[in-house]
């Protein structure tokens, strides 16, 4: 349904500025979003420095320290956590009634969800860059050009994980259930990916099933697409999978919030 551009932009501004102001108000959120990956980078990576011994694999053209290897995975972690946070925000909004306000605005629902997704992604990407900057301070830098080249991939990956968060928010009805979601979604996605070690290591060690699952994990491809982009290369398959998952997750989330067919309707609870 066509809505005037001015209306669409104002609504986007409304949703985005609310997300940003909430983020700023919750002072600890940026800190906790950064402490997590920094712990991995500074403590974990230091401890495992010599255990893993990463050989030369694309996109790297030389031996790299383990810290450098895990930067893209930790960027993914930042995006993943914030994406799930957007799901938490939806559940919170539903409990606080703000969701009603959004859903009764004279705009197509899919557009409102899209505005939510963009706003959440904006926060994800900002946090990812703050993490890159801090990593650089710790001496774990990526090529300067990589900062720019990674931007579109970070946006797409952030949107894909945010859309997954939106999709989960259709199902997760209460805030209390959020911790469970974290355990069942965030950790498997993170560990079954090349965030901490290249996937061939899994294959080499004979963990075939895990290797297989990891290859089908959308997060794997977000990390790989980011890794290649940071070094000025394109990972076409990973990028395509990220975009494909983004479209599918978003479509399913819109379906879930549709008043006609949605899953909300079936579960019977008010929006």
């Amino acid at each position: 349904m066509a809505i005037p551009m001015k209306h669409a932009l104002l609504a986007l501004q409304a949703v985005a500025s609310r997300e940003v102001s909430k983020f700023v108000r919750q002072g600890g959120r940026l800190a906790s979003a950064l402490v997590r990956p920094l712990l991995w980078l500074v403590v974990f990576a230091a401890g495992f420095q010599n255990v893993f011994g990463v050989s030369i694999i694309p996109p790297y053209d030389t031996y790299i320290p383990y810290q450098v290897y895990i930067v893209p995975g930790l960027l993914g972690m930042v995006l993943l956590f914030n994406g799930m946070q957007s799901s938490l925000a939806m559940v919170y909004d539903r409990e606080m009634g703000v969701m009603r306000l959004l859903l009764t605005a004279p705009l197509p629902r899919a557009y409102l969800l899209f505005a939510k997704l963009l706003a959440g992604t904006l926060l994800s990407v900002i946090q990812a860059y703050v993490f890159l900057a801090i990593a650089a301070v710790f001496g774990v830098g990526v090529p300067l050009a990589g900062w720019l080249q990674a931007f579109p991939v970070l946006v797409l990956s952030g949107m894909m994980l945010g859309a997954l968060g939106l999709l989960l928010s259709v199902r997760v009805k209460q805030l209390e259930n959020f911790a469970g979601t974290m355990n069942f979604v965030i950790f498997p996605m993170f560990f079954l990916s090349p965030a901490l070690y290249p996937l061939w290591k899994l294959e080499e060690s004979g963990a075939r099933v895990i290797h297989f699952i990891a290859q089908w994990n959308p997060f794997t491809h977000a990390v790989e697409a980011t890794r290649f982009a940071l070094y000025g290369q394109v990972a076409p398959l990973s990028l395509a999978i990220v975009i494909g998952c983004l479209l599918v997750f978003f479509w399913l989330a819109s379906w879930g919030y549709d008043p006609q067919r949605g899953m909300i309707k079936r579960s019977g609870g008010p929006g």
Partner: protein
Amino acid sequence: MAEWDPYGGNLLEVEQVRKAYGSREALKGVSLQVAPGEFVALLGPNGAGKSTLFQLLTGLFNADAGTVRVCGCDMREVPVKALGRIGVVFQQMTLDLDLSVVANLKFHARLHGLGGAEAAERIADALERLSIADRAKDRVRELSGGNRRKVELARALIHRPRVLLMDEATVGLDPASRRQLLDEVLGLRSGGVGVLWASHLVDEAEAADRVVVLHAGKVVAEGTPSSLIADMGTDSLAEAFLKLTGPPERTPA
């Protein structure tokens, strides 16, 4: 943008709507109308289906059967047009407590496509009208329950809706605030706004142009307060209401 829309017929037309949650039928074919400048009270005991009806009227869900039309726009076919013409005050408070009054209203204005000076002007007008202009910069958290409701009413009016839906809007308010809110809403009639005021409190329905009594998912009576009293042969609207809704229906466990 709420352009002037010269729709002359009933502002709100609900025809034979049905809604079931699983096997429980919450609405069993409900019809009602609200004309321009008319204040219609929707009276019903708790559990009568008022909240479900409001969810259908605000497009949160679609009815299983029947139609909801706002100024002739079908909520199912053209939800965006229909939603643009209604203003809603929900039963549950939907303000962001940590934002100022103005920031809350601005959020709503933008969702309705109003920005810049136009929004600022309308927000100032609405606050002035409800005599809460002096609280504009305060955080909502610092406001009393009555004033929070006024802010929500102001918000519902910013985009100049043709129909105002009030869902148990006086819940939790003291009698004075309750009266004040009701008077404000009654005052909107002169501007041609149609109001549907849902409540389980009979005294709020006494000033209504028309009363629709909803009970167990059905409209059991409809008319002016005096005609309902006459029809039921009682002395007051409260007695008529009690007679109509009878002993509370037991829902099977």
